[in-house]
């Protein structure tokens, strides 16, 4: 990490340790100077902030907490003073890569380039170009600028285009847009993100047999919206946590320009409780609702909520819960879903302490509901509305954590309560994904 040039401290100290094992915190030390070698474009104020903590050190123990290697003296030091020199290697100016990506019935090639630390204060410029086997292409260019104030604010700007197929709803969506985001922490672990997005959405029928209700919603629309996302995450792992809670609140107001207008509110909560014997109880609750805000602006199938799928409401097909027309999911304006999982290690613990830790078995119970509910001021009535026609499924299966980011699940599901029109998936169900219920 760094090299400390001290006076004759080292030899003295070595002798003392040999003689009577003096504890290091008794030796006074203070940092007089810090040298940073190998810096090209990084600005001084950033470095000053990074090494600021060093100057707080009063004794040797505090000092060596920062470093691994100590050595000789500097010329103009105070009696207890040390000079610190960092030998650093800056990140290259250009980093790039070519990857392949497989998803949603399409394989694609991704060419990426990154210019890290562009202006010397942590600014990043990142660009990505994606070309798919269905001749669809996408790109993404992002500029990020962090600041060194309180709360570590960060400004992000991006322009992008991406295409996605939604075979469960029978359409293909091409998004072209731009976004501007300010993110910061209002308190430790509480992240805020304020965001403006302007997205031109182009919906096309994926098949000639796409439901007519979906066909009616195809075409071009422009969404301009502001969003606030609050996140608090104290979990110890994103995929298979053993402790901690997660909370996300998401508000979106669309209709500042463009022809799409709505107010959308979403929340997501998860807790994890260790029950002992490596058994973990996980509960999660999520929900959302949206409504029109003006008479002349509406929203379409690209904005509505969907429920169902191997990592959502298990036991149902992808987007299989809720309003359908000719086998295509149409989405709805409000939903809620809960999941209760009981995780335990694999039986007989094969690969314990190693690869076996990436696998867990679980029993689960999922309950949820989706629909165009009419809410009133009567909370009791609202609760009844939310609970009528609910869907319930339970089952058991194996979860695999991939790179602590994504999860594979293979489950045996039993849908217990469902409504006519829902698309069920009883029996074995396999799912891959990043978000889960």
């Amino acid at each position: 990490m760094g090299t400390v040039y001290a006076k004759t401290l080292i030899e003295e100290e070595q002798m003392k340790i040999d003689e009577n094992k003096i504890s290091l915190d008794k030796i006074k030390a203070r940092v007089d100077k810090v040298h940073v070698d190998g810096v090209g474009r990084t600005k001084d104020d950033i470095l000053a902030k990074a090494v600021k903590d060093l100057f707080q050190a009063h004794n040797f123990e505090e000092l060596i907490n920062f470093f691994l290697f100590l050595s000789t003296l500097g010329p103009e030091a105070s009696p207890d003073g040390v000079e610190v020199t960092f030998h650093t290697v800056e990140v290259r100016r250009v980093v790039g890569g070519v990857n392949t990506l497989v998803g949603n019935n399409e394989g694609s090639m991704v060419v990426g380039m990154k210019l890290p630390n562009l202006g010397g204060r942590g600014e990043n410029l990142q660009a990505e170009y994606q070309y798919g086997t269905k001749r669809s292409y996408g790109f993404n260019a992002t500029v990020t600028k962090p600041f060194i104030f309180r709360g570590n604010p960060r400004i992000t700007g991006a322009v992008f285009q991406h295409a996605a197929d939604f075979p469960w709803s029978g359409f293909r969506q091409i998004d072209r847009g731009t976004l501007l985001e300010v993110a910061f922490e209002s308190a430790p672990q509480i992240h805020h993100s304020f965001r403006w997005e302007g997205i031109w959405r182009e919906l096309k029928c994926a098949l000639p047999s796409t439901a007519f209700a979906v066909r009616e919603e195809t075409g071009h629309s422009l969404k301009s919206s502001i969003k606030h996302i609050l996140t608090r995450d104290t979990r110890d792992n994103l995929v298979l946590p053993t402790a901690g809670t997660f909370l996300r609140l998401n508000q979106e107001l669309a209709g500042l320009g463009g022809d799409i207008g709505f107010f959308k509110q979403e929340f997501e909560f998860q807790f994890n409780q260790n029950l002992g014997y490596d058994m973990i109880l996980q509960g999660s609750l999520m929900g959302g609702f949206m409504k029109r805000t003006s008479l002349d602006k509406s929203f379409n199938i690209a904005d509505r909520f969907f429920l169902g799928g191997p990592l959502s409401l298990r036991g149902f097909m992808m987007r299989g819960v809720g309003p359908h027309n000719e086998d295509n999911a149409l989405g709805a304006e409000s939903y809620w879903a809960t999941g209760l999982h009981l995780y335990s290690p694999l039986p007989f613990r094969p690969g314990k302490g190693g690869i076996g830790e990436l696998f867990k078995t679980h029993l689960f119970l999922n309950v949820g509901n989706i629909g165009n509910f009419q809410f009133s001021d009567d909370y009791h009535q609202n609760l009844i509305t939310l609970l009528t026609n609910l869907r319930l499924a339970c089952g058991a299966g194996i979860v695999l954590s991939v790179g602590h980011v994504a999860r594979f699940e293979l489950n045996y599901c039993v849908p217990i309560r469902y409504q006519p029109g829902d698309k069920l998936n009883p029996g074995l169900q396999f799912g891959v994904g990043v978000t889960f219920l």
Partner: protein
Amino acid sequence: MPSVLLTESIAVELGAVEPWPDDVKLYQPYEVEQILLPDNASCLSVQAFLKMASLDFQVQMRSNAESMSPSGKVPFIRCGAFVVAEMDPIVAFVNTKGIRLNDHLSDAEKADMRAYMSLVNSVLANAELYICWCHNETFQEVTKPRYGSVYPWPLNHVLCWRKKKSIKKKLASVQWLDKSLEEVYEEVNNCCHAVSERLGTQKYFFGERPTELDALVFGHFFSIITTPLPDNRLAATVRGYQNLIDLCKTVDEKFFQKKQEE
């Protein structure tokens, strides 16, 4: 994909046995503020054809009719589970139900009819596209505001530019893009002359009963003479052929105004 096409064609075959339902709808852009001359011509042609065949339908105007259409072109009809776009496929679809306007024609006349339809499609349709999208004054004053009217800023500019690009590409592929405006009017005049010669003094192209050729010619000519444009030479050219104007009047009175009175 092949399997989908196969099931589609089987479905069309199966659908043929079913009679014409009551709830057939024809989708097209808004007539007053949105539709452009070429689209208006094809929508009127299809409407005229369906009315000539005495088939009931309702006109539905949608701002996104173009995106909804399976071929990306208007108009299209929704008949039961089927969605069929553009004149020729719609005529073919109606024919599968055993309804034909050209039953009284001999084989030679049928071939004649196909030839004239293809002449009208290749000349008049391209000329309309050329004038709407490549004649700068018309584009700025009529096409751009109308095409963009249903989209918010800045989509109105972007989509209009994109459409213009694709139309130019299409016209270039049939060697129309290099033509001057004069050459386009010349082509139109020649086409009108040929069509007018064929019609002669008859009520319809093939005697007393209308065919799809009459529907097509009506759609194009009626649209051209009723659409105001900054450069009205297209309408003026067409107005020079009295027998064609008379045909338009006959079809309009017999199939469109009569229905409205009812």
